[in-house]
């Protein structure tokens, strides 16, 4: 095998220019695909983080049917067995209770629909780090009677710190809800959509406002490792009464986001497929040329006693080696480029930025350094060079020693 490897390696370099061109084309394909993949995975990570870390958490527990029909009437009553289940589950870093609903908010002569989040200030901060997003004023106390406004909303309603927010809505069982709340602080939520419509209240205050004493809409759970989400979800489902409660992970709660990522991935796969196909045909052309140039040489070695399968091994190795060298060069060349963008995400501006904000995401292009970014390219190239290697094997299979010698 060592001899074959040596032969293959030397053959690879017998036409240096051609090999360098082939290797460069693979290098470019790997670089482009890795960059693209890195950018995609980076933005997905950003999107998921945005959705999970700043709002939904990894897993939520609701009253059964709440997610389908998000009304206060579908809320759950705090009880010990549920708390026990959450407390005793491994891998749950933090969890926090919430009561969420909609309402109308107004200042002197402006009105807007808002999303009211009744939170346990301490616990909520552990899960979604709201406190760090405070840009003005102070954070809520445990039983605070004031509210926090998202910056966009405050701006829209032309309200400042210590002004009063008036809210009108419908409470539990259709009871009308109304109240006046002093503004304790302004929060800049990284999700631009949310930034336009969030009102935070202490949970007690919120329950009072909605006449929903002792009720919650959800428990929001944060885990240390996203990969463990299915396991944790599963164990929670086992330990609580699922006739009464539903346990959902972020993917189930945000199917649109998941779908968006999936379809984006598929578009990219098509693009990369075309790119790799072009490269693959380039390699195939090189291999075909190389085979016909070496026809006589193949004739000689078979004549003097080399079995065809040994010769096939050599040319197979050569083909794989071209891909291998190209991949190595490609990955090594891509690493610093992607590392740079990983460290320096690209801020977006203009129309594309607006579109991204429209979708509720941060207008920044993040890059990922996940191993899959590089591994995917390596595997792809290995697979298609292995497929291309069928050609020389087929060629040698059909080669007649006498014809090869006469060429």
């Amino acid at each position: 095998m060592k001899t074959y490897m040596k032969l293959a390696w030397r053959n690879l370099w017998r036409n240096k220019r051609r090999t360098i061109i082939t290797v460069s084309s693979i290098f470019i394909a790997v670089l482009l695909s890795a960059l693209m993949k890195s950018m995609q995975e980076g933005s997905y990570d950003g999107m998921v983080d945005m959705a999970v870390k700043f709002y939904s958490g990894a897993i939520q527990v609701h009253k059964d049917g709440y997610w389908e029909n998000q009304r206060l009437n579908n809320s759950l009553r705090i009880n010990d067995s549920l708390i026990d289940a959450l407390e005793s589950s491994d891998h749950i870093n933090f969890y926090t209770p919430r009561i969420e609903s909609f309402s109308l908010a107004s200042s002197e002569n402006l009105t807007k629909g808002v999303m009211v989040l009744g939170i346990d200030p301490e616990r909520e901060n552990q899960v979604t780090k709201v406190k760090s997003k405070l840009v003005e004023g102070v954070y809520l106390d445990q039983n605070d009677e004031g509210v926090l406004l998202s910056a966009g909303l405050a701006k829209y309603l032309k309200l400042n710190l210590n002004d009063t927010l008036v809210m009108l809505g419908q409470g539990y069982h259709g009871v009308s809800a109304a109240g006046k709340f002093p503004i304790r602080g302004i929060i800049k939520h990284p999700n631009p959509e949310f930034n336009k419509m969030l009102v935070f209240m202490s949970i007690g205050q919120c329950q009072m406002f909605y006449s929903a004493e002792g009720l919650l809409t959800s428990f929001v759970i944060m885990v240390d490792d996203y990969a463990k989400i299915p396991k944790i979800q599963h164990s929670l489902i086992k330990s609580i009464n699922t006739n009464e409660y539903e346990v959902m992970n972020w993917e189930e709660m945000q199917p649109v986001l998941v779908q968006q990522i999936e379809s984006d991935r598929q578009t990219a796969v098509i693009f990369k497929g075309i790119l790799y196909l072009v490269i693959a045909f380039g390699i195939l052309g090189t291999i075909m040329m190389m085979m016909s140039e070496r026809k006589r040489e193949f004739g000689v070695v078979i004549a003097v006693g080399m079995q065809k399968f040994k010769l096939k091994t050599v040319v197979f190795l050569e083909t794989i080696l071209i891909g291998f060298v190209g991949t190595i060069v490609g990955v090594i060349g891509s690493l610093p480029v992607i590392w740079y963008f990983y460290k320096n995400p690209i801020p977006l501006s203009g129309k594309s930025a607006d579109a991204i904000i429209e979708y509720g995401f941060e207008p920044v292009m993040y890059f990922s350094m996940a191993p899959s970014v590089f591994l995917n390219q390596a595997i792809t190239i290995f697979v298609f060079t292995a497929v291309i290697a069928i050609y020389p094997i087929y060629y040698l299979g059909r080669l007649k020693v006498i014809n090869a010698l006469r060429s």
Partner: protein
Amino acid sequence: MNIIEVKKLHKIYDQDTHPVHAVRGVDLNFKEGEFAAVVGPSGSGKTTFLNMLGGLDDPTEGEIMIDSVNINELSNRKKINFRMNHIGFVFQAYNLIPVLTAKENVEFIMHLQGRSKHDRELRTKELLEAVDLADKLNVRPNKLSGGQQQRVAVARALASKPKFILADEPTANLDSKSAANLLEIMEKLNREEHITFIFSTHDQRVVDKARRVITLDDGMIKSDVQV
């Protein structure tokens, strides 16, 4: 004792379209230690005949026994192994693997035979010395002259310890001095080591060295003389 027996050998190319009767009814025997030239004008069937002797091409009719083995009855795989162990080949040109050095080219065939490293190295040195190339061990073919390349090819052909060596116009691409030099070496190997050589040529100076001259004409044996 005959090492090669050829009986009623025929070769017809393109039998279905434009049949060319390249070899027509050749009967010949070769003994161990011969130094035989196959001569004849271009197109007389020399290459066709030697290719069949070497198991590279199949006869249309007739049979070839080498060491009492009918080589035409061997499977492709077995034929390749048979060639490796019994026949040495020297072609007109481009005999060598360009990416291997002289030494590696000679070793190559012993590698295929699975001989030990020690064995290979010893014999390679011996053989390259025998063809006066002891100083070119690590040189690749493109850095060797045509005559030197043919001498490496002879060394390689001998490496497997074959029963005989087939050489189709080994001097055709060489200048007269290199040709004479190659012939001298072949002759010496024949005389001193009893290596059997069967070669074709249309160079009279090469023919003069042969001890048996078989003349082909239009695919038939015109004469077969011991000199």
